[in-house]
């Protein structure tokens, strides 16, 4: 076991946080951009000298200086290709050159002493001319275009000063395509910047969006109408600088950006914790857009996170309290009923939730006592999370952010399909395999931003990515090797890798020769890499796999003294890790407490227990409990059986702290008032006057959360005495929008829980990043305004990326070597069940969004075709998964032998699969086993 760890490969922030509730912005994160450290240079722009970073291109440098220069095709995350010609500036040969020549800023490296003109008449005329050319075929349909008001093309048109079109010819028109439930297509608005295809193909690895034809009739779309298949297609809405690709779910209840009330929020649909800006109008949540975070999501969300918000306004939304006997209750009756039930209780079992905030869970814990506070997750997952935390706390292991993951130069994925369980991580890993390409570019002296040149030089060269998983994954196309095996075998492979790295780690007996060879190859790749990364998670519900990751991490740390090993553990829900850190009891313990009669009342916070354990167990628990109280925002099977249901605010209407899989605590804020009678989950539970009191009480009572008050400034924070408005200055109709109900303008609601105001009045500038509801800057109405909020183009947010990392800083000193598991026993004609995750389908709340539900699979049991043949099962044939649960067989080539894959978390398949359950398929007419 290694000695004390002094560093990791990514240089995490080490600045000490202060109590953000006192005001002021959180700690500043030290930058860790790609490539070698850059020396400073000076260039002269319009006669004035400016410091810039060597190695940058001129456009980046100009924007990083805070100057304006129009551009279209360049994107900070995708580099330059020089396609649009919009970023022209005049470059002078030397001090005497008075004429200069036009160069594309995005394609020109900065050089010491370089002289350029941004504002010279020729430069301006050139850019206005380019804009005019780009606009020849544009339909000028801004009033009916959903991009209008936040359109980069509008902004750039104004910025170039080009106002009068001279073109009087015909405009080419296109037929638009139906691209599925997420994205609208309006090709006539295209200016052919090529961003969409570069993003979709090069950045995301998608192959069904393309550019067709040539010259002025180029067409960006699919080969034929149909769903855009890539899981990150939604970002096209923000990547396209015009209104070609827009959010179809937003169209149904469209509102201009300036009419939306927004708040800084955090995605609640997986454990990654991407930052979002949800937007509200007329009391309903209208859309989600990306909120830049320099360490996590950067510019991009996944489609589950962007389009999964429908539950907030969905048909199953709970607006009113209800009692099983009397139906709907008004608020005060509900309060009284709650009080009476709790007073009457002979012991209360509290069941918390991995999709509720730390504060809401803590309020429940305070209400019922630590002993009676339960995690409300399946027991297998509970075990996995405990193991995971044990590893994180005790091993020299550094939980990487997504930006760090992108820098990894060798990656091993054990047992996980990140695209399905932690989608944004998968997109980061797709960038990680490009590190080989960047290294080749370095050897050839090609700057990383020279995108086409880097790709040309590297061809198909990639950094090694190894994937060992039960089923094919969506990253297989970029993997050096894939291995399909049962979770146990995957764990054994992992232990063998650890032994290959550090011979002191116990060897694994009885591996197949192929697995021996693969383990050796992986060990070799990880040891020779500079920044190796191991990715795993709770996806296949195997503690063995997690222990194997710990073993590899320890082995690598032993082989590389002083370096912590980079790891990312995918966890299923937005606060899975936070809840795990609260050390709650297991669900089995809850059942036992009720069963034994120690308690007779269940107080369930934001949780549908039918997703956590099998129906019989949950039925028994709910039946046995004399009183069942559910606090939630959405009606579900558990709430249907409760004696009292209290409506809770959804993430868009409440505030709190979540801990992401990176171990980062992040505060999210309400974009709107709680709908109907719903209120913050914690407000039903305790005497807390406002959120800060609760957050501080939590920080004071559980040491691991000591720093969470610093996640964001508290409710008392003011800028020059003012709160931060959630509405833009141009918010329209405030005095009239409710005039059909009441002609007096209602008073704006007070917000006692945050420094944000439900108003358009307040401090317009200098928002701390954690409190910035939306990006907007003079001349920059689109999301590209984010450049004005970064320390450099594509860098960190000025003032520091929000959030406080609570764990996983590589300080663990070691655990004894773990013993590799034995080969699993053969189980004759039975199969082992393994959950298969789906980005669209496995997450509870996003499935209430009809667009997401449309993309979800129908329930199935997946078998490897040979297994199916051996068992005499044909595709589509019905088999009995559990008593009276019949599912069609799906032959899944590539699925590991001996395994039956069952989709995880589908609403119409309420059978949670735990690892290692063995299952013998029955066909209709068979005798039941």
């Amino acid at each position, binding site marked *: 076991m290694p000695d004390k760890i002094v560093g990791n490969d990514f240089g995490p922030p080490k600045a000490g946080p202060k109590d953000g509730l006192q005001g002021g912005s959180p700690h500043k994160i030290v930058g860790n951009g790609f490539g070698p450290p850059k020396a400073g240079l000076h260039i002269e722009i319009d006669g004035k000298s400016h410091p810039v970073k060597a190695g940058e291109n001129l456009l980046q440098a100009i924007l990083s200086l805070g100057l304006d220069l129009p551009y279209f095709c360049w994107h900070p995350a995708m580099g330059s290709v020089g396609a649009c010609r919009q970023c022209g500036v005049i470059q002078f040969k030397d001090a005497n050159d008075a004429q200069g020549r036009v160069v594309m800023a995005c394609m020109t490296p900065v050089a010491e002493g370089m002289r350029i003109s941004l504002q010279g008449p020729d430069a301006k005329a050139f850019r206005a001319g380019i804009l005019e050319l780009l606009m020849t075929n544009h339909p000028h349909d801004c009033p009916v275009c959903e991009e209008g008001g936040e359109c980069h093309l509008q902004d750039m048109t104004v910025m170039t000063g080009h106002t009068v079109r001279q073109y009087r010819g015909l405009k080419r028109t296109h037929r638009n395509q139906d691209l599925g439930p997420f994205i609208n297509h309006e090709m006539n608005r295209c200016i052919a910047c090529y961003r969409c295809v570069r993003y979709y193909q090069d950045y995301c690895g998608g*192959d069904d969006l*393309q550019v067709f034809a*040539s*010259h002025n009739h180029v067409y960006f779309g699919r*080969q034929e109408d149909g769903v855009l298949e890539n899981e990150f297609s939604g970002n096209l809405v923000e990547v396209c600088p015009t209104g070609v690709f827009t959010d179809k779910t937003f169209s149904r209840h469209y509102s201009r950006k300036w009419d939306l009330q927004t708040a800084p929020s955090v995605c609640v649909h997986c454990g990654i914790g991407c930052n979002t800006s949800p937007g509200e109008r007329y009391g309903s949540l209208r859309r989600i857009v990306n909120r830049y975070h320099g360490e996590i999501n950067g510019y991009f969300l996944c489609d589950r996170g962007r389009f999964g918000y429908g539950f907030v306004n969905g048909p199953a939304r709970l607006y009113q309290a209800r009692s099983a006997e009397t139906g709907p209750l008004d608020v005060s009756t509900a309060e009284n009923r709650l009080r009476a039930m709790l007073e009457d209780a002979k012991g209360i079992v509290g069941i918390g939730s991995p999709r509720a905030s730390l504060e809401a869970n803590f309020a429940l814990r305070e209400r019922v006592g630590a002993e009676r506070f339960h995690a409300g997750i399946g027991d297998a997952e509970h075990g996995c999370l405990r193991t995971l935390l044990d590893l994180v706390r005790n091993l020299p292991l550094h939980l990487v952010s997504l930006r760090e993951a992108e820098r990894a130069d060798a990656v091993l994925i054990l047992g996980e399909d990140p695209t399905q369980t932690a989608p944004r991580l998968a997109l980061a890993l797709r960038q990680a395999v490009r590190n080989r390409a960047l290294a080749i570019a370095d050897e050839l002296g090609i700057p990383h931003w020279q995108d086409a040149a880097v790709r040309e030089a590297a061809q*198909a060269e990639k950094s090694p990515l190894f994937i060992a998983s039960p089923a094919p994954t969506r990253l297989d196309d970029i993997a050096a090797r894939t291995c399909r095996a049962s979770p146990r075998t995957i764990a054994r492979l992992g232990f063998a890798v650890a032994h290959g790295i550090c011979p002191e780690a116990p060897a694994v007996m009885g591996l197949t020769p192929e697995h021996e060879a693969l383990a050796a190859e992986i060990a070799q790749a990880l040891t020779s890499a500079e920044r190796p990364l191991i990715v795993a998670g709770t996806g296949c519900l195997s503690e063995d796999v997690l222990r194997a990751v710990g073993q590899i991490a320890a082995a690598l740390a032993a082989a590389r003294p002083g370096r912590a090993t980079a790891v990312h553990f995918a966890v299923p829900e937005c606060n899975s890790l936070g809840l795990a850190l609260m050390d709650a009891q297991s669900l089995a313990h809850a059942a036992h407490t009720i069963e034994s009669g120690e308690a007779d009342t269940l107080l369930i916070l934001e949780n549908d227990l039918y997703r956590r354990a099998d129906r019989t167990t949950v039925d028994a628990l709910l039946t046995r409990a004399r009183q069942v109280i559910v606090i939630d925002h959405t009606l579900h099977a558990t709430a249907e059986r409760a004696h009292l249901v209290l409506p809770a605010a959804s993430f868009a209407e409440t505030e709190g702290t979540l801990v992401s899989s990176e171990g980062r605590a992040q505060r999210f804020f309400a974009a709107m008032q709680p709908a109907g009678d719903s209120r913050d989950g914690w407000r039903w539970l305790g005497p807390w006057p406002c959120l800060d009191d609760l957050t501080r009480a939590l920080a004071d009572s559980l040491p691991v959360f000591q720093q969470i008050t610093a996640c964001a400034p508290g409710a008392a924070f003011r800028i020059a005495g003012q709160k931060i408005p959630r509405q833009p200055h141009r918010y329209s109709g405030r005095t009239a929008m409710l005039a059909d109900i009441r002609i007096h303008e209602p008073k704006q609601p007070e917000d006692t829980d945050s420094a944000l105001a439900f108003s358009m009045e307040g401090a317009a500038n200098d928002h701390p990043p954690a409190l910035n509801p939306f990006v907007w800057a003079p001349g920059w109405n689109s999301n590209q305004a984010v450049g004005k909020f970064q320390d450099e183009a594509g860098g960190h947010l000025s003032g520091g990326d929000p959030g406080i990392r609570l764990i996983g800083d590589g300080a663990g000193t070691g655990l004894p070597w773990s013993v590799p598991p034995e080969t699993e026993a053969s189980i004759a004609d039975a199969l082992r069940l393994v959950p298969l995750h789906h980005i669209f389908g496995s997450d509870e709340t996003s499935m209430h969004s009809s667009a997401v539900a449309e993309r979800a699979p129908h329930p199935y049991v997946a078998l490897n075709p040979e297994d199916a043949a051996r068992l005499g099962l044909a595709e589509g044939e019905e088999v009995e998964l559990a008593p009276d649960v019949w599912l069609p067989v799906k032959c899944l080539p590539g699925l590991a032998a001996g395994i039956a894959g069952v989709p995880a978390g589908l609403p119409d398949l309420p059978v949670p699969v735990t690892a290692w359950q063995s299952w013998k398929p029955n066909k209709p007419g068979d005798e039941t086993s």
Partner: protein
Amino acid sequence: MTLTSDEIQAILREARHFPHPSAAAIEALNVVQRSHGWISDELLQEIAELLGMSPAELDSIATFYNLIYRRPVGRRVIHYCNSVSCWMLGAEDNRRHLSEKLGIAVGETTGNGEYTLLPIVCLGACDKAPVLMIGDETHFNVDPARLDDILGETGAP
């Protein structure tokens, strides 16, 4: 319409010249167009599969090139250059003459399946503008009178 085994062999032969079969995309399209006259959606799917590409990727290439046809064309395609030199020196007169003479607009095929009329970008012979191609032959300094001669020669209807 499906690929013949000769075509499949020819495509695979081409693909073997490159580390990535997709590099043979253009040649594969040519092979198929030579025998089928044009590339239908079905053929495109099959070729894409042979080369390990998505249909969209291959179609992106197919639609980029003027001489790959994604719709049926006549036995001979008339490609008249309408880039700037030819345009200045009478491309449009020639186009009108052709349309009248053959009874087809740009993009159409004569009823007997003989000719299709399409524009094309600069053929690199601006000094002999206006220029047009009929089938594989390029004709220089074309005017309506010469067109009558040429089309007569090549068997106009």
